[in-house]
């Protein structure tokens, strides 16, 4: 254990700070699912040019081309977060497709898509889940049949965030119906303007449509839009699922949320008593603070493991389960602190900011379910982390 930063990192932090000081006027607001404005595209370019976005993407694909250094990445994230300035674009194209193409894409695919994706010119959505294939994703049924130089795709995807604005989708489809379920899937890049694609907003419990359903009717996609070989899509997709789980349950978000709650407790007074002076609220705050600290330190541990190229095992497997539950619990605490006012969800003279917390409380429940449900996470923790056996498969027609 040595928590002192080396001189190289102290200098690096100075550079980040001076960049932010000089350029913060250019930064936009936090991302929402709309197409980036021209100012936002300019900001993204500025960040890439200075190595604060697309940092480790090779120069020939439009990135900054730095060596991977998780400590520097963390310093960037910390200082941007402290200054309350949004990082570069974070969307599924950048966080999931680009790493996949770098690892498994053809040279043509890398040249065609990486540069446009990291610059924000091309926006992607992810087509994995289907109404009948959630936790059992590999059972997916959207079909692609070969016809000349094209695939013809029919089926339906669900939970597709950003589909209404996306130019492209990276999608899992069944190309080999005779093969075992994990071996019959291919990973295909689809232009969202292709005839036969219909996007319908999916209204959730929050009252907003954060997701969509996407319907495919005889959609023609050139065969060379496949990433990896036919039938290897499951393995291609798993390369990116790891990236997604790293994004969910981010401890910086929990720490920020805890600080907002402490501010709230200083501001709000009920029955003449400031919430921060109420011993029962304080006890709950301290319990949550211990969990937030534990997850922050856990992320430092993961950072060191990643820096030394070691497998962090259990410390990594628990992040999605714990992080999403913690964020949900923090939002629930904020609502309880506001009491009756905590239920206000809409414009009202009596609003003390509960809408944001109610939205988070509901949306975070969605995150506990999405990206691998809590139950699936527990299967992974017990099987990979603790070495417990998989649930035996039931016999069907005398076969397993």
């Amino acid at each position, binding site marked *: *254990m*040595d*928590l*002192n*930063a*080396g001189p190289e*990192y102290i200098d690096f932090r100075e550079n980040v700070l001076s960049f932010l000081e000089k350029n913060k006027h250019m930064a936009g607001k936090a991302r929402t699912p709309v197409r980036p404005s021209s100012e936002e595209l300019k900001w993204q370019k500025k960040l890439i040019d200075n190595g604060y976005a697309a940092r480790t993407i090779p120069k020939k694909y439009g990135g900054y081309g730095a060596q991977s250094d998780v*400590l520097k990445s963390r310093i960037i994230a910390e200082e941007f977060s402290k200054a309350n300035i949004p990082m570069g674009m974070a969307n599924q194209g950048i966080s999931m497709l680009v790493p996949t193409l770098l690892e498994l894409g053809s040279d043509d695919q890398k040249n065609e898509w990486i540069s446009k994706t990291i610059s924000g010119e091309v926006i992607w959505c992810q087509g994995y889940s289907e109404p009948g294939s959630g936790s059992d994703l590999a059972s997916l049924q959207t079909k692609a049949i070969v016809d000349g130089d094209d695939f013809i795709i029919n089926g339906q995807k669900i939970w597709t965030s950003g589909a209404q604005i996306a130019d492209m989708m990276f999608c899992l489809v069944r190309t080999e119906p005779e093969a075992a379920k994990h071996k019959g899937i291919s990973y295909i890049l689809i232009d969202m303007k292709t005839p036969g694609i219909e996007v319908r907003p999916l209204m959730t419990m929050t009252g907003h449509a954060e997701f969509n359903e996407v319907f495919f009717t005889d959609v023609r996609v050139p065969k060379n839009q496949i990433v990896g070989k036919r039938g290897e899509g499951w393995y291609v997709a798993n390369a990116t699922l790891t990236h997604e789980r790293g994004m969910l349950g981010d401890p910086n978000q929990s720490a920020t949320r805890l600080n907002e709650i402490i501010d709230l407790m200083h501001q709000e007074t009920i029955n003449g008593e400031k919430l*921060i*002076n109420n*011993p029962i609220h*304080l*006890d709950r*705050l*301290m*319990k949550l*603070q*211990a*969990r937030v*600290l*534990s*997850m922050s*330190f*856990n992320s*430092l*541990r993961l*950072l*060191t*493991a990643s820096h*030394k190229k070691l497998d962090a095992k*259990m*410390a990594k497997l*628990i992040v999605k*389960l*714990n992080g999403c539950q913690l964020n949900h619990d923090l939002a629930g605490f904020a609502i309880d602190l506001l009491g009756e006012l905590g239920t206000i969800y809409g414009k009202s003279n009596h609003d003390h900011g509960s809408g944001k917390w109610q939205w988070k409380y509901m949306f975070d429940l969605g995150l506990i379910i999405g990206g691998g449900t809590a*139950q699936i*996470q*527990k*299967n992974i*923790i*017990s*099987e990979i*982390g*603790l*070495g*417990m*056996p*998989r*649930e*035996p498969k039931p016999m069907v027609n005398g076969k397993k």
Partner: protein
Amino acid sequence: MEFALSEEQEILMDSVKKMLDENISIDNLREHSKGDDSLRKSLRKLIIDMGLPGLMIPEEYGGSGLGVLEASLVAEQLGSYAAPSPWIGSSIMAPTAILFDKENNLAEKWLPLIASGEITACVSLSEVIGKRSDLGLVLDGTNVSGVSIFGIDGELNPTIIITAVDDNLILVETDNNGVEINEIPTIDSTRPVVEIIFDSSKCQIITGGKDAIQKTIDVGRIGLAADLLGASQNMINKAVEYSLERKQFERVIGSFQAVKHMCAEMAADLEPCRSLMWYAAYSQDFIKDEASLLACHAKAHLSEIGQDIARTSTQVFGGMGFTDLLGMHYWFKRVGLSRQILGGPERVRKEAALIQGFEL
């Protein structure tokens, strides 16, 4: 920046683990709990042979000069094996307290004896942690009288007692000084606690006032948190192991999701505690501003998680967990004691809030 144990720290932990693994079994823990002293004595000798008692004592006083993090790694292993051995009082809290002394040459006199294992020191702070109206200590000049309870590491005829009166730590020699020590029968037979009755016993005031008391409590809480971490991890490991052997409905019970998810939840709760523990122990020596707060959080949080794991893991064993045959109850009870001594979780969280300036 490196958030991981060093190679030396790993080696220290492994060597303690190996020694305990070779010498502690459910059978000799059971004999120990019936009053047989042989495990306690043989363990003490092994710990002295490894040079452990002076781990945190500076080299100039015959110790190894290591830090609270290293001491917590030993505590974690002792908890993992439910080892009946002095540690948190004699090797963590007492040296920390004595090093505050600037007037009486207490370090020169006592630390070499603790380091060599010739003596043990008992630390009893009920006076400042959870004072009871019917108990307490009174100082008359340099003589102390009264009763202090829940002294830690008082089972091997300690040569000195460290306790607190009127915002000061005091050191009391036990030989011919009106000191009576009696074990208090608690749930936990693996780690005795004692009551100490002082009858006009001569004492020396350790300088450092409230800061010295606070620091001594902080490092004691770190030790208990580490003991809880080790005990909890062991209970998870044993539960998983058992679930892979025990068959019902022609399957090992560890293949049922109901059981798997209990184990996954325990692991998910405990794993981040390890990072909290490392940071909290490291902060005692290297991030002093955060040391007291982190000691509170480590102690309170591990008390809560430890209690959940103690009950859940016992349930994984089914009826056998409830019997004496497998002996898992030794850890269940050790967790129960660690939770309460040096402050139960609510009391400790209240301190954590006060440290941050939140007014109650």
